[in-house]
């Protein structure tokens, strides 16, 4: 087991190295002078020269690359042009919001997705099966940002059930403890007995989590269905049924357990993708997360911030995939033995 984990970890280093290198060259070789682009057409030659020197753009490309790598190894992502703050600090401030949103979206899509998938598989070819699989296909065909707007229109504007955006009611002033507002709300509830922060955080979470979770939900439901159908055909399930074990136990304890392998893989993969998908959802819901932050950095041509943001999102994506691989090998011994 340990050997497998070590093997996977050693493969991680070249991938990370490649990702960081690719990000560097993509930005370095982009058409146009970044300093000029950042400052706009009206900037004087001196101003442009100053920024070029500040960013090290006056040095040969290979030297720039060396310096950049040296900084990255020291976890120094440079300073944001727009705010002057350290990129790493800005990322740290925005990261919890995105992770929290992704986690809730994933919880929503996993629970509902597996439930729908199991229901579809056990009622194969019924109208429930047909309806939920059509629904799943519709889910993957929908533009996330449009769904987000429609949710706002229906549930915030017309029904007035949920807020249109943000993470917290602005009237509740509080100093974040961990940056994960729901968790912070829980801590405050335990400490002071006041539930309003927790409720407000959850209340703001509902629509963004549903919008972001819809595509993964649809994919999880489809995978669960096909995986369950395969397992339900096997002899041990027939044996369990003929032994008179309750159907619910046969399905959830015996069948689902063995059908979980592909489902876990897809959940992990989707979780990683949510990090990037959050750019759209966060923009619509004015969610102050990493996705929206990277988007604004792109808009402002704030290259150090863009570089840092992409590196962090991609590394998170790679790390999540690694964790999934390891988890997968834990539940499936065949993988680590091969």
């Amino acid at each position, binding site marked *: 087991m340990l050997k497998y984990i070590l093997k996977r970890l050693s493969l991680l280093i070249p*991938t990370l190295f490649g990702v960081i290198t*690719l990000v560097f060259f993509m930005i370095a070789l982009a058409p146009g002078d970044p300093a000029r682009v950042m400052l706009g057409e009206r900037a004087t030659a001196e101003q442009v020269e100053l920024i070029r020197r500040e960013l090290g753009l006056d040095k040969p490309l290979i030297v720039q690359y060396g310096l950049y790598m040296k900084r990255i190894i020291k976890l120094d992502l440079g300073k944001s042009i727009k705010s002057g703050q350290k990129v790493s600090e800005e990322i740290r401030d925005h990261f919890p919001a995105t992770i929290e949103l992704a986690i809730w979206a994933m919880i929503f899509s996993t629970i509902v997705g597996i439930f729908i998938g199991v229901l579809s598989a056990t009622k194969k070819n019924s109208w429930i099966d047909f309806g939920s699989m059509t629904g799943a296909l519709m889910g993957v*065909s929908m533009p996330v940002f449009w769904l987000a707007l*429609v949710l706002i229109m229906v549930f915030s504007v017309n029904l007035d059930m949920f807020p249109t955006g943000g993470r917290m009611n602005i009237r509740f002033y509080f100093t974040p403890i961990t940056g994960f507002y729901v968790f912070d709300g829980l801590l405050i509830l335990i400490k002071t007995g006041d539930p309003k922060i927790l409720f407000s955080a959850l209340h703001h979470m509902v629509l963004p989590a549903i919008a972001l979770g819809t595509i993964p939900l649809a994919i999880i439901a489809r995978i669960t269905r096909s995986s369950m159908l395969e397992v339900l055909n096997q002899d041990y399930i027939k044996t369990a049924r003929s032994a008179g074990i309750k159907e619910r136990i046969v399905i959830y304890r015996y069948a689902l357990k063995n059908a979980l392998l592909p489902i876990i893989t897809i959940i992990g993969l989707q979780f990683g993708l949510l990090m*990037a998908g959050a750019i*759209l959802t966060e923009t619509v819901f004015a969610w102050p997360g990493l996705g929206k932050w990277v988007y604004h950095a*792109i808009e402002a041509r704030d290259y150090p911030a863009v570089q840092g943001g992409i590196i962090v999102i*991609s590394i998170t*994506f790679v790390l999540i995939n690694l964790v999934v691989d390891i988890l997968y090998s834990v539940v499936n011994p065949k993988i680590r033995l091969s």
Partner: protein
Amino acid sequence: MDITITTNKLEKNSLMKEALFQLKGNKPAIIGFLIIVSFLIMAFFAPFLTPFEPETQDISLRKMGPFISNHILGTDDFGRDLLTRIIYGSRISLTIGTISVGISLTFGILIGLVSGYYGGWFDNIVQRFVDIMLAFPYILLTIVIVALLGPSLTNAMIAIGISQIPSYIRVVRASVLAEKESDYVTAERSLGASNTELMFKSILPNCIAPIFVQATLGVGNAILSSAALSFLGLGAQPPTPEWGLMIASSREFVTSAWWIVTFPGVAVFLTVLGFNLLADGLRDVLDPRMRS
């Protein structure tokens, strides 16, 4: 050699025929196909389908509701006919879908074929590069490429095309690896067929099924991505009647004019659904493992 090629062709023909025959019985695939055809008709015959122009403004007709006048789906905040803009928008979306998939297909097939056929150091380098490209979440890669090239519809197409290449390389390479050890390839090689002939005339036609499925899915995905890019201001620029851009500019009307928000989204959704339904059906028919 004659015998080998004849059987090969015969198999291919019967596979295509069988696939078409089975597709006829696949209701979802037929619905998907019909949706796509309707949007194609819309795109081709746009000027004949509507009396209005997509970019002509009429401030006196601002934000007219749907189903109450000859503006069937209503008008937007500049008084432009919404249905007309959606009809013309199908031209843009379908073009982006096809061209960006064309870009990914051309490079994906070429690189995947050579990489899978020859193997060795070239394959190794390509695969490591593919690994790295796939380590970026797809939509992020697209956004970054288009942001670097500069926001425009053409650049959006290029960006979507480039960021999809790795998955095509994977699909093509995997099928080439499976095919290249087949008896018919060995037979043709022993009869003196050159590497290029083997790759393009013998192996590639037999790898078409998974590539075809991937491309069908790819068109839907590309349409979704281009809408997302335009929504973020990185794709089409106003006043182009692009669906994503129409949704973006409708954002401020969520409280006042639901139709401006809803209908362009429905158009994206239906088109993508069409391609997904067809791809699902094709996969069922063309992938023997699914057929059982």
